[in-house]
């Protein structure tokens, strides 16, 4: 039984409201663990921020919390600004690293094509160069290395025969074969002839 508490629109609005509040809180209370001397203090900070966020979403003590936020914002203005700037720099660096990767991948493909072990190894190592230079916190580059020999996969391609094979192997991977359907039909037929 589905108990409908409100319309779909209401649900969507509630979700949007929560996300708006959470983004605003995250942009103000943007300290990281580096700002704290021990893990417990950092966790206490996170818990307090979550309590305030929850109360804002639920509409509890809103005025009091807004005053608290304004006071915190005033007292920590410089730290907030610096943390936002650092985050922006990290994001830009990650994007730049991600944008550099297609060239590296192409080089890697060329190396693989030449079948020279040393060149291939150099190419693979080169993919991680951005992470080794000047970044204290490496980030995923967003693009996986191309598998060597990928083009020889027999199930790649969009033609009808390949798609049928792929579907068949998918079903078999799940444990099903066409014989199972037949066997089940036969079993049900013969087991239900008599009461």
């Amino acid at each position, binding site marked *: 039984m589905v108990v409908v508490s409100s319309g779909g629109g209401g649900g969507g609005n509630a979700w949007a409201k929560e996300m708006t509040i959470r983004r605003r809180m995250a942009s103000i209370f943007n300290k990281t663990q580096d700002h704290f001397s021990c893990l417990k203090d950092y966790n206490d900070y996170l818990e307090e921020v979550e309590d305030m966020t929850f109360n804002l979403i639920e509409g509890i003590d809103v005025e009091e919390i807004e005053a608290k936020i304004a006071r915190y914002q005033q007292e920590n203005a410089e730290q907030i600004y610096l943390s936002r700037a650092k985050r922006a720099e990290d994001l830009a660096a990650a994007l730049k690293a991600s944008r550099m990767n297609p060239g590296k991948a192409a080089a890697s493909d060329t190396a693989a094509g030449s079948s020279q072990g040393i060149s291939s190894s150099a190419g693979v190592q080169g993919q991680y160069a951005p992470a080794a230079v000047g970044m204290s916190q490496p980030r995923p580059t967003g693009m996986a290395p191309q598998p060597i020999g990928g083009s020889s996969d027999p199930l790649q391609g969009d033609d009808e025969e390949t798609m049928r094979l792929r579907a068949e192997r998918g079903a078999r991977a799940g444990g099903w074969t066409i014989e199972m359907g037949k066997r*089940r039909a036969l079993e049900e037929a013969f087991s239900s002839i008599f009461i």
Partner: protein
Amino acid sequence: MADFRTSTHRERWIFQTNDLMDRWGAANQRATETLVQYGTTRLKVDPVDGSLSYPEPAPDHVVGSSGVKPLSCEEERLMRVFYEQKIQEVCSAFKFPHKIQATAIIYFKRFYLQWSVMEHHPKHIMLTCIYSSCKVEENHVSAEELGKGIQQDHQIILNNEMIVLKSLDFDLIVYAPYRSIEGFVDDMEDFCRAGNGEHQRLQDLRQTAISQVDKMMLTDAPLLYTPGQLALAALHKSNDMHKILNFERYLESVFSRQHSDCPIEQFVGSINMINYLVEQLKIPTPKDMRHIDRKLKHCLDPSSQDEHKKKEKKSKHKSKRAANEAQLDS
């Protein structure tokens, strides 16, 4: 893998004809007594847990007054068949598989073994049975989508869900003859040592048998016989049309592989009885249903009868208009 031999379908939901008559009679009698005592038969259902409360007596009701007549068992039977056929139409419109259609019809039949159509309107129960069947057979359609497709309020579907499930004793796995037909047709290929031409004719046999089962689902046979028996009866009928094999010899072949005490003559009798039930089936037309439907409406809502009488008095000098209004009431 589901097994019919250990199922509740086999254990609890296959009846003798007398049992069916008793249960339908008991439901009809209970509804009639409710009508006499409260002036209406409509039961209020709590949508959260499916519990019931008896209706408020009509303000002007006198216990024992005979203002409204209850439906007879025969009228109830016609109404059930009519709405079972509606289930088939709805499932066809949504292009549901045969299994969902059969499951919904079996749920509907089992529900009205417990209740009279005077207590719960079959138009609403039908929708809830389809909705539950879609969920059980892993072809979920939301109540909103179902309601939208047939221009009905989806809340009606949800409000009745719990009472339907409770009335089925939550025995939700049911067996329809369609898969049994597949099994027997595969077996017949081996029996005939079928070549390519025979294979095509067996597929025609299968299609005709499936159509026969669709009709069979509207009779009482699914409550009286097992899916295997229904499948063999349908294939027997289909074979009479297509003349593919000697069905008697095939049955002997099937029986020789079973360890059963049932003589083959008795089994053939069951098959003939099933096919007889199908031949006797008459699906009521909307015109046939008009009178019964108006009668049911009065049982569920007695005040509508008074309003109807007033309309008749106003227009008794204009018979054509009265006839039109009668049609509009349907």
